[in-house]
């Protein structure tokens, strides 16, 4: 069975703090994709990143970085120097055939 677990339901930080959102997944497949999406209060899911199972290189995009570790089945997301605009629900998702399996989401609140 495939499963994605985001153990942190809600996180609250003060602006400029760094914050890491955890994602742990389960799959028996050797080929799969991992995703992060952001859902701001407006409701639309915004695609942030896709990683395939053969690429364990960490990725950095501005203040965002992602750490993929197959050994621990984790794909964690770090926001450096958080801003109020980062406040949103963040979803981690897993896919092998193209159907997405979502985690429950982590609500991030960044206070000014």
């Amino acid at each position: 069975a495939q499963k994605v677990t985001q153990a942190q339901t809600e996180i609250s930080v003060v602006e400029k703090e760094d914050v890491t959102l955890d994602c742990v997944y389960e799959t028996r497949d050797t080929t799969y994709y991992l995703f992060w999406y952001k859902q701001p209060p407006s409701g639309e899911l915004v695609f942030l990143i896709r990683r395939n199972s053969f690429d364990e290189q960490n990725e950095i995009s501005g203040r965002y970085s992602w750490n993929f570790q197959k050994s621990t089945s984790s794909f964690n997301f770090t926001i450096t120097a958080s801003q109020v605009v980062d406040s949103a629900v963040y979803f981690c998702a897993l896919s092998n055939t193209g159907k997405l399996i979502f985690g429950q989401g982590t609500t991030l609140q960044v206070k000014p």
Partner: protein
Amino acid sequence: DVKVTQSSRYLVKRTGEKVFLECVQDMDHENMFWYRQDPGLGLRLIYFSYDVKMKEKGDIPEGYSVSREKKERFSLILESASTNQTSMYLCASSFWTSGRADTQYFGPGTRLTVL
């Protein structure tokens, strides 16, 4: 930029009404998806389509049907709306690449209330 649009952001309907939710994408994607999102239950796949006139059931298809007559348009139909179908409905689309569906891009969502 990928653009997925949904016909309404907010919709209020009465129990028993037939409800149509429309989704249009402008990227020539083969695959289209309908999800519903509920607090505590996350996002759940209702139906998806990998080609015109083709459809596959997702995890929670009961009470819903879909229609895909044109590649760019995917409709979700509630034949007889019920209060337990009050939810946020999200549409997504993706390419079909190397034998699997590629990154899904989502529309803005429709918040449906059934009274």
